[in-house]
Each structure stands twice: as C-alpha cells, then as structure tokens.
C-alpha cells in the first residue's frame, strides 16, 4: 500500500494556521461559560412510591461552579433571589408506566427568614401546575382499563441565566403516551415588584409589541425554511387556522446569557412534531421602543 502511505504523508502535511489552537481554546471556554449559567437539576430518585413530600436526591448534571457542586436537597438561586430552590419530588413506577415529576419551591436560605408574598404566590402557582401534571398522569394510569398503561412523564427544571432583576425557572415536561410530547412552562419573577410577570408586563400600555414581534418571527420562519430544506413551520398551510399568526401576551420566553429575548413555542404549536420545541431570538431593535420605562427586559 505504498501509494496510500504517500497520500497519508501529503495529507498530514496540511496544517492549520497557528491561530487555530487559540481559537479552539476560546470556543471551548465560551461553551463552558455558557453552561456555567445554567444548572440542570434532574430528579433521579427511584423506588420511592407516591411519597409526594419526600425530597429526593438531586444530581446536578452540569456543574462548574463550586457553589452548585453538591447533590443535596436544595441549591442556591443565583442572582435575583437570595433564597434557595428545593424540590418536592413525585416518583411513581409500575408495570409499563413511570413518572418523575419535580415541583420546585423557593425556600428561605436562613432560618427565621420568611418569603415575600410574591415568592409564596409563585410557589403556589408552580405547585398547581405540577399538581395538574401529576393528576393527569395518575388519571392516565387508572384509566388504562385493565391494560398495561404505557405512560411516562419526566420533568426537568432549569434555572435560567442569572439576572439582577428577574428570576426565571423553566419546567420542561416530556410525556410518553404512545407518541411523545414535550412542553415547557417558564416562570419569571420580578424581584423589584415582587410579582410573577409575563411577557406583556415588559411593554408599555397601548404598544403593539405583539405585531412587531410576531412579524419578526414570521420573517425568521420564512428565512429558516428557505435556508434549510428540513425546516418547516406553519406559515402557509391550506388550513389557514393552523398558521402561526401572532404570539400571546403570556407567550413563553426567556432571556439568554447575552440578555436576548428568546420566544419559545411548544411542540406542534407552530411547526410539525418532528421540529420539536422551536425557539426564536428576537433582536432588541424590534421591540426596544415599546418597553415601558422600568421594564425588566431592559
């Protein structure tokens, strides 16, 4: 195989410019930094049946910060709130079905401290939401009608990039009942006003942020479809009702590490199932003028 050896030598003679080593290092540093701001907390406790109030072991999968490096019952919330985030876990497992549903709750970081009314309300809201998921799961298991219920529910809770004003918590739920569906609920808490906030709360009254942002998203959808043959969004369906028209006042969103507004759509909402959950980053210029003076999006 002499020729191959020659070819190999020639091939190996291709060397990258010296700057590549540094560029690669920078790229990896950037990835690590972005990960550091996102703590993914997953409940992995198994074998505890129906003990809703038990605090399960939380294994932090992504960790570079020493503060978050523990497998304990609670983690510090960085940024906006100085409290701790803990989890009540619901785990149930049987023949053909399994659920790991985590209910995150804010608790005071020091004994004797109390939560603000807003924080307590947020806890209740979150609890109602996850309780609904639990109820739906249990109903699905009970209603299997004698057959083995093939139901699976898994939730992942993510504390979104820290911010001085906004505490954001994302709950992703994956349901497996025959097919699989993923949906997200993102909670935002404005520390300045001690209130849970939705997207509409960032904008001044009377401004048409909905149209501006929706138009931008439609543009992005068209662009993505033009550039990527596999991308598909409900923009020009025969059934006009299925088309994406505009976002909602309580549209799911979050701020990424560079403080860009990212709009999130559930699976099947604006695109076929295989696209999964879709997200769009909306440039500041699109909505900057419509923010109210003291907006949490600034």
């Amino acid at each position, binding site marked *: 195989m002499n020729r191959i050896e020659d070819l190999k030598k020639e091939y*190996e003679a291709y060397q990258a410019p010296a700057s590549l080593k540094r*560029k*690669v290092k920078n790229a*990896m540093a950037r*990835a690590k930094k972005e990960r550091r701001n996102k703590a993914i907390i997953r409940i992995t406790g198994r074998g505890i049946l129906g003990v809703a109030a038990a605090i399960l072991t939380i294994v932090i999968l992504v*960790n570079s910060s020493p503060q978050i490096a523990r497998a304990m019952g609670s983690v510090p919330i960085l940024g906006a709130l100085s409290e701790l985030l803990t989890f009540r876990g619901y785990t149930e497992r049987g023949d053909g079905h399994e659920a790991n549903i985590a209910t995150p709750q804010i608790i005071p970081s020091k004994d004797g401290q109390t939560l603000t009314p807003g924080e307590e309300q947020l806890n209740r809201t979150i609890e109602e939401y996850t309780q609904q998921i639990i109820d739906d799961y249990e109903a699905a298991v009970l209603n299997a009608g004698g057959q083995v219920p093939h139901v699976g529910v898994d939730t992942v809770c993510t504390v979104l990039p820290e911010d001085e004003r906004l505490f954001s918590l994302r709950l992703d739920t994956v349901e497996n009942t025959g097919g699989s569906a993923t949906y997200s609920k993102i909670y935002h808490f404005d520390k300045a006003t001690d209130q849970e906030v939705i997207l509409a709360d960032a904008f001044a009254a009377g401004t048409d942020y909905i149209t501006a942002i929706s138009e931008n998203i439609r543009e992005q959808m068209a662009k993505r479809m033009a550039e990527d043959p596999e991308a598909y969004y409900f923009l020009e369906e025969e059934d006009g009702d299925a088309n994406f028209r505009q976002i909602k006042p309580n549209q799911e969103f979050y701020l990424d590490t560079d403080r860009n507004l990212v709009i999130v759509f559930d699976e099947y909402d604006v695109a076929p199932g295989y696209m999964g959950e879709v997200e769009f980053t909306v440039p500041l210029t699109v909505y900057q003028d419509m923010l109210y003076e003291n907006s949490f999006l600034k």
Partner: protein
Amino acid sequence: MLKQINTRIEELFTNNYQKYYRLAYSYVQSPEDAMDVVQESAYKALKNSKGLKNAQYAETWVYRIVINTALDSLKIRKREVPGVEDYQQEYIQEYTNFDVMDSLKKLEPNERAVIILRFFEDLKLSDIARILEENESTVKSRLYRALKILKVELDEFREA
C-alpha cells in the same frame, strides 16, 4: 461522570485539532472555512456534551460532529463546485503537481470521509460506521468504491 466526558472532549480538541482541520478541509476546501468548522465543532461538542453517553465513544462522537459541521458549512456556502478556488491551490502547490486534496475532491463527501478515516486516521471500520451512522457493509462497499476511483485517478497521473 459528566466531568470526565467534558475533560475528554477538551483533551481531544486540544490534541487533535489538526486532524479535525484536515478532515474539515477535505470538505470545505479552504483554510478559513476549515478553521471555522473546527472552532464551531469544539463549541458544539462541549456545549452538547450531555449527548455523549459514554466517554469511550468520545473520539467517534467528535468526528461525527466535525463531519456534520463541515457538511452544514458546505450547505451554507455551497462551495463544493470545483472552480475559481482551485487556482489558488495551483500557485501554492507549484512544485507538486499531484495534490491529495484534489484527488479526494473527486470523491463523494462520504467516500472521502471513509478514505480519510480508514487510511489516514487509522480507524476501524466499526468506528467509521458509528461515525457515519451506517452499517459496516455499507462502509466497506464505499471504501472499495472510493479506492477504485482513487486508483484510477492515481494511475492517470502516474502515466502523465
């Protein structure tokens, strides 16, 4: 567990970025684009490291990312067509009439990958199959087909 995986990924890129560069270059045919592909791959690999279940497979997993990133880059830049860029090569390779990259360009991207990974990076067929997400027999037939094409090309040159 994840920490091991992340360390392994970093190790791979720090030690092997030249290999990834060459592989990327075989697709994108330009130093700048090849560098972009390697950087982008390093970023993606580390960012999505939880997609890798077993540190054992880190090497093949990274190769796959590099190849997919290179293919994406081609889609965006559409530079597969041999054309003006080739003149640059001619000037640089003045004293070498025969260029391995030119040869490889005659192959389909996946045939190229098989030749590079098998003969230049010395990977096993099973690893290559994993990287290209195909079964081994497909990889094998690709390999033979590519060798056939290459040999023809080589012979043509030698006789010239």
